[in-house]
């Protein structure tokens, strides 16, 4: 098992390098002059030259890439000019908030998505199946940012059950209960689409498994139907559900951008949008590379989970 993890980590290195190349190329090859963007169109040539030198833009492309990569490997993601602080500090701080939000949403969509899918399959064409299928259809069609806004209207304005926005109360907050209270609505809004997708997939994976011979064997042994569904069938269905969980984690992480804007959650997504509007290229670069790298590592964890479940995978 340990060997397998090491192998997967090593195989991630080219992917991680590829990610840095792609981000670097997107930022470097696109027309537009960062110096002008920073200083405005009335900047003096001396100042433009100084900025270019500070950003290392006077060197050839390949050299710039390796300097940038080398710096990143030592933890130096550059300095955000709009915030006037090291990019890595800002990203780490904001990423924590995103992780809380996206992690919670991921747990919600995994649990509820799988449960809904299993019930739906077990009661195929029954009332519960129809209700879940309908709810799933609504869920995957509703834009998360719109859903978030409507939730604010319904549960923060009309009924003051939850706070309108933010991560902690401004006065007297800051403890875990306060965080949880602020987390409920954004996490749910973020989880809804992924829950729908996972429910749908779990349903079809379960239907596929329930027709298999080993399910008939379990029934022939006299295993109770509840256990047939929730142990025998679900275990086998997880083999096709787990990879989708990995993909959905990416969607949840992405979707956090919208939810962080709607609920003014101080996460990395909101930071990125602001950085784009401010044309703070280094902050965008750093943020994107960092989050993408974390996602790659998460997917390795998904593969490891898969190999733990399925002994047929060669480790």
């Amino acid at each position, binding site marked *: 098992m340990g060997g397998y993890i090491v192998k997967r980590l090593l195989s991630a290195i080219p*992917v991680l390098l*590829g*990610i840095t*190349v792609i981000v670097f190329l*997107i*930022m470097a090859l*696109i027309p*537009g002059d960062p110096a002008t963007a920073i200083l405005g169109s009335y900047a003096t040539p001396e100042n433009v030259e100084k900025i270019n030198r500070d950003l290392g833009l006077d060197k050839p492309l390949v050299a710039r890439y390796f300097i940038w990569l080398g710096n990143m490997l030592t933890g130096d993601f550059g300095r955000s000019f709009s915030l006037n602080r090291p990019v890595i500090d800002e990203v780490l701080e904001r990423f924590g908030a995103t992780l809380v939000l996206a992690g919670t949403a991921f747990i919600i969509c995994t649990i509820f998505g799988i449960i809904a899918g299993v019930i739906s399959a077990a009661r*195929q064409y029954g009332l519960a199946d129809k209700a879940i299928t309908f709810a799933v*259809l*609504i869920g995957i*069609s*509703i*834009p998360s*940012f*719109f859903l978030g*806004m*409507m939730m604010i*209207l319904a549960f923060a*304005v009309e009924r003051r059950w939850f706070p309108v926005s933010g991560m902690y109360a401004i006065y007297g907050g800051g403890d875990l209960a306060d965080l949880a209270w602020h987390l409920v609505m954004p996490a749910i809004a973020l989880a809804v689409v992924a829950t729908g997708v996972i429910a749908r997939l779990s349903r*079809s994976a379960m*239907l596929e498994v329930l*027709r298999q*011979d*080993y399910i*008939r*064997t379990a*029934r*022939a*042994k*006299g*295993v*109770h*139907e509840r256990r047939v569904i929730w142990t*025998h069938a679900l*275990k*086998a269905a997880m083999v096709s559900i787990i990879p989708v969980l990995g993909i959905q984690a990416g*969607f949840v*992480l*992405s*979707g956090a*951008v*919208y939810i962080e804007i709607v609920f003014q959650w101080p996460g990395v997504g909101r930071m*990125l*949008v602001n950085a*784009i*509007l401010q*044309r703070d*290229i280094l902050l*965008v*670069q750093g943020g*994107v590379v960092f*989050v*993408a790298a974390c*996602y790659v590592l998460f*997917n390795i964890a998904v593969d490891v989970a898969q190999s733990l*479940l*399925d*002994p*047929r995978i060669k480790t």
Partner: protein
Amino acid sequence: MTQFIKLLARNQLALAGGIILSIVVLVSILVPILPLQPPDVTNTADRFMAPFSEGHWLGTDHLGRDLLSRLLWGTRLSLAVGAAAAIVAAVIGSAIGIVAGYFGGTTDNVIMRGVDMLMAFPYILLALAIVAALGPGLMNALIAVAAVNIPFFARNIRGITVGIAHKEFVDAAKLAGKGHLTILTTEILPNVVPVIVIAMSTTIGWMILETAGLSFLGLGSQPPQADLGSMLGEARSALITNPHTSVVPGLMIFIIVMSINLLGDGVRDALDPRLRSGALSRPKPTTTVARQSSPPHGPGEGVLDIRELETQFHVGKRVFKAVNQVSLNIEPGECLGVIGESGSGKSVTALSVMGLVASPPGVITGGAVFHGGQDLVGARYSTLRRLRGDKVAYIFQDPLSTLHPLIRVGEQLAEAIRVHHPVGKAELRQRAIDLLNDVRIPNAESRVDSYPHEMSGGMRQRVAIAMALANEPEVIIADEPTTALDVTVQAQVLSLLDDLRREHNVAIMFITHDFGVVAQLCDRVAVMYGGQIVEQGTTDDILANPAHPYTRKLMECVPELGAGRRELAAIPGLPPAVDDLPPGCAFAPRCHKAQAECTKAPIEMTRGGGRAVRCLYPETKLVEEEPA
């Protein structure tokens, strides 16, 4: 194609989605000629008017602009941008996919590694990076959304192309000296276009949503021009005071995406052959029972008494009479063989006993199965479950697919015991090891922790036999347990079953198509054809003098060691389709002795000398029974 449209139209939800989407598209095409107020003209005196105000059906926004007009213009823009992004992504992505799939080798490797890297990004993050570089704007948002969707198309289309690139007609074109470009455009492209269109139809809703999302973040369309996303984004600051400005564009996005999803699901279902055949329905815990006449009375004889059993498969309007009036009984410790070709109804008979016929489509429509004085057909689920595996156990055909692939064999054995008897964990493990020893599996102590895929076919079937023996049942129903095995392994498993039967004094109902197996194992045998029993008797009698022509033919199919001279017979023709049986003998069309009257009326069983045969011209005359 027409069938496809028919299927689509039958799906009401898909139809509704299609109609809603058509209306939305039609209206947005007509927007320029509709009598709408100009969408961008501000009138701050009339700001935030409520819906249904005079002159403004949907009210006005924070600058006093007519919301209806802005909504329709915004919808037009959102649809256009979403569709454009889908087309751009489809064209570029498919081109990449076709090139990679067609040329293969290094080209393929390099391209697909690049695609993998693009797919390693969380989706929107990449779009954000692109917008960050290009700067906010609707065109740039379009490019970003298209770009992040390119890998999806590239990967899908590559897969399809790889399949096509090695087909004969492509080789033929190559031999004819056509250039790569010609082959790509004339041979490959026409075959992948349908796939591209389907992939587009499933992603276009997503792309509309994503461009709307970027606009919502202020990175897409810039004021005063507005798509649905930026309308929602602008309205957000007035969400609490004037929610209608948010609700209007938000609902529109929802309606568009939902109608596309409905339609897309309908298209997918209509194209999926498995849904058409009903093969995707899940079997219920027990077979549905719908007996049309009052069942035979009990209590029945022997350990298992099947009486006039009728099991059918209802697929659409067609009715397959898989088992038709079958009666069998098994005495304690006896081995009864049930023999017939595939489709003769022997397996369905076996599965009907404990309600294990997949349902839907299976339905037990008549008869009874008595065990211990009670009728199992129509028994409650809880009753059946308690008997399954405890009193009546099964062994199935293919041990690879009938054992759970992700659970250790020891646990599967232990579970068979645990569901019926409260036994502690340590003892369960010991019992599992003992069971493996009973079925002569070497190194049982270590094998107990193996997964099924780590064992050979014969080993797996031994495990399945051990599982059937776990609770010392009264009857084991073995449904072709040796068919999937090698001949030498078959012989071992058969002699094991024979030994175990004597050691444990368990009755066996042995389903097979092989008379050789019957001869080796069974006391009595029932021959099935077209869902009916056509002959029944002791194995010795039937082997010596088969009465039914079918039985004789079936026996001639068995190869004999050392008798290589004899030509191995096969029965000409195919077993009948059981949804359209002739009124009389089902075997008549393949029978060399068949006469006109054989197919006129149902043929009754003739009984005599402990035997029974369903034939007007039997090969052997049965001994007349003394009239009682």
